[in-house]
């Protein structure tokens, strides 16, 4: 679980070099997405590939 982020530098100025260094420290190669072996036969003409789950918090 992630921790909360505090506003740790509120009211201070940050140097350009410090910003560059911080961004560089987050620069890491990401794992290549694996092909999805599951073949979905989609007859639904109106399907949306990037939709939200309809009812993520609903009871079954």
């Amino acid at each position, binding site marked *: *679980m*992630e*921790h*909360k*982020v*505090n*506003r*740790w*530098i*509120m009211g201070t*100025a*940050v*140097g*350009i070099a410090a*910003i*560059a260094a*911080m*961004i560089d*420290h*987050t*620069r*890491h*190669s*990401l*794992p*290549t*997405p*694996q*092909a*999805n072996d599951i073949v979905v036969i989609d007859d639904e003409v*109106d*399907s*949306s*590939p*990037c*939709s*939200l*789950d309809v009812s*993520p918090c609903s009871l079954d």
Partner: protein
Amino acid sequence: MPADEHAINVLGSLRYFADKDSNIVLNLLDGQIPRENEKFPEGELHFANLGWRGFYHCHSAKDRHHEEHGHFHLFARYAEKQDNSIDWTHVAALSIDNEGQPRAWFTVNQWVTGASWLSASDTFALLDDIPTSDELTATEVFLLSMLGLYHEDLKELLFDRDSQLTQINAGTSMDDKLHNREVYVLSSQQIDLQQRLSLAVSV
């Protein structure tokens, strides 16, 4: 909240990720290898129920930009004017490169997300009050703060979206345009986060 405060919150998130030798995507994957079209996190981001939702996913290699690893889709809650019912609309997507860095904002046609469609001005109004909470995760803080930091760019992005939409198959109905599967991305803007942060908070 002024842009420099959003910048400070972006920097706070970046430091959190940097301290873990991570970034916004690795933090979300938590050691998992993503499968194409699989959503992260499982169950989506809920932003402490503050009116925003989202998720990260990667399209298949043939369907994604060669510089993109995947993208976050960000949705905002709004109340229908007619009956005050609650619904969700897609605000923007944040494209991430293969090293976990934001590379572009973009908008998509309605059929892509299936979310309710609001005009650019109504969508942009949802960005007027970006929420904050101690209950937000670092990923959520980063994403909401990015929306704040790029507030004016997103206005241009959204109005460009609507402008592009009007040019699709001139003469066809709005409904036909919104469901035209030949049109996926409607507008996009490149991101230079280092430059933006430098402008906002540097000495």
